[in-house]
């Protein structure tokens, strides 16, 4: 299946260090939280892109191989750490798993595709407003993202729309050690 990205960069046929140089240039035009897809044929680019993202502070989501083409997914982020926890109703992931409600994953589609908790529902943060009708006010909702920052905002948004049984999952998927389901 194809994975949703905000921008595509074609680095096919280029050898090291060009895929990295091009990726750096391309990601400068994205805003925080957007996803860049880099297509490359350089076999070393998988390790390089991951190391590059780690070094400069962006989130390397994963790589899909399609024949000789490697498609790398990177999420631009300058700061994903929780600076301010505004939403007060919080829950730990383990605790949420034991309960009956819905796990709502508000990360981007690409992040969800590369690994999520079985049974979780995906609505990226940016689409929450438009898709709020898909959620049930009677059900407990445990909002999860990678670190707890986006889910904090999403939980506030749900509350503003009259949802009361909303919990922000802290810290988020970074602390998840259970099985991951993939859609790739």
């Amino acid at each position, binding site marked *: 299946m194809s994975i949703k990205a905000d921008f595509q960069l074609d680095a096919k046929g*280029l*050898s*090291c*260090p060009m895929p*990295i*140089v091009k990726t*750096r240039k391309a990601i400068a035009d994205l805003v925080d939280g957007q996803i860049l897809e880099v297509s490359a044929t350089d076999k070393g680019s998988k390790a*390089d892109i991951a190391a*590059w993202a780690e070094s*400069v502070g962006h989130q390397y989501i994963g790589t899909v191989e399609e024949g000789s083409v490697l498609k790398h997914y990177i999420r631009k982020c300058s700061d994903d750490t929780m600076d301010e926890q505004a939403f007060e109703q919080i829950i730990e992931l383990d605790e949420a798993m034991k309960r009956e409600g819905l796990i709502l994953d508000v990360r981007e589609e690409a992040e969800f595709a590369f690994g999520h908790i079985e049974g979780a529902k995906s609505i990226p943060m940016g689409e929450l407003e438009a898709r709020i009708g898909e959620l049930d006010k009677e059900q407990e909702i445990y909002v999860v993202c990678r670190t707890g920052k986006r889910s904090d905002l999403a939980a506030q948004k749900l509350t503003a729309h009259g949802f009361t049984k909303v919990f922000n999952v802290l810290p988020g998927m970074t602390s998840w050690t259970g099985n991951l389901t993939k859609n790739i």
Partner: protein
Amino acid sequence: MSNKVAIIASNGGLFDAYKVFNIATAAAATEKEVAIFFTFEGLNLIHKQGMHALPMPAGAEHFAEGFAKANVPAIPQLVEMALELGVKMIACQMTMDVMGLTTDDFIEGVEVGGAVTFLEFAKDAAPSLTF
């Protein structure tokens, strides 16, 4: 963690050029502050004419085909990219004097300095590399 990468380029062949400029551009693209100190034959790598015809090591000429096939960027292109990414290039004044070279012999963007200029930059750089 150091955010600086210091490189000494002291050889003037095509392979040397790739080692130097690949590492330099990759480091600069990873938001590192990079300086290359060109000395002795390394000055060849930033010489206006010389950089277009860098020699292969004796017996390795057959790699020319491999370079073309792997679609490796040409050295002048890599150098331009390195400068665009903010890589600092310092030509060693002492060896320039020995070899009778002036700044006019080098591409634009090259600075001239002595050993202390490089040492000052490299004192807190990690890694420091010599090619």
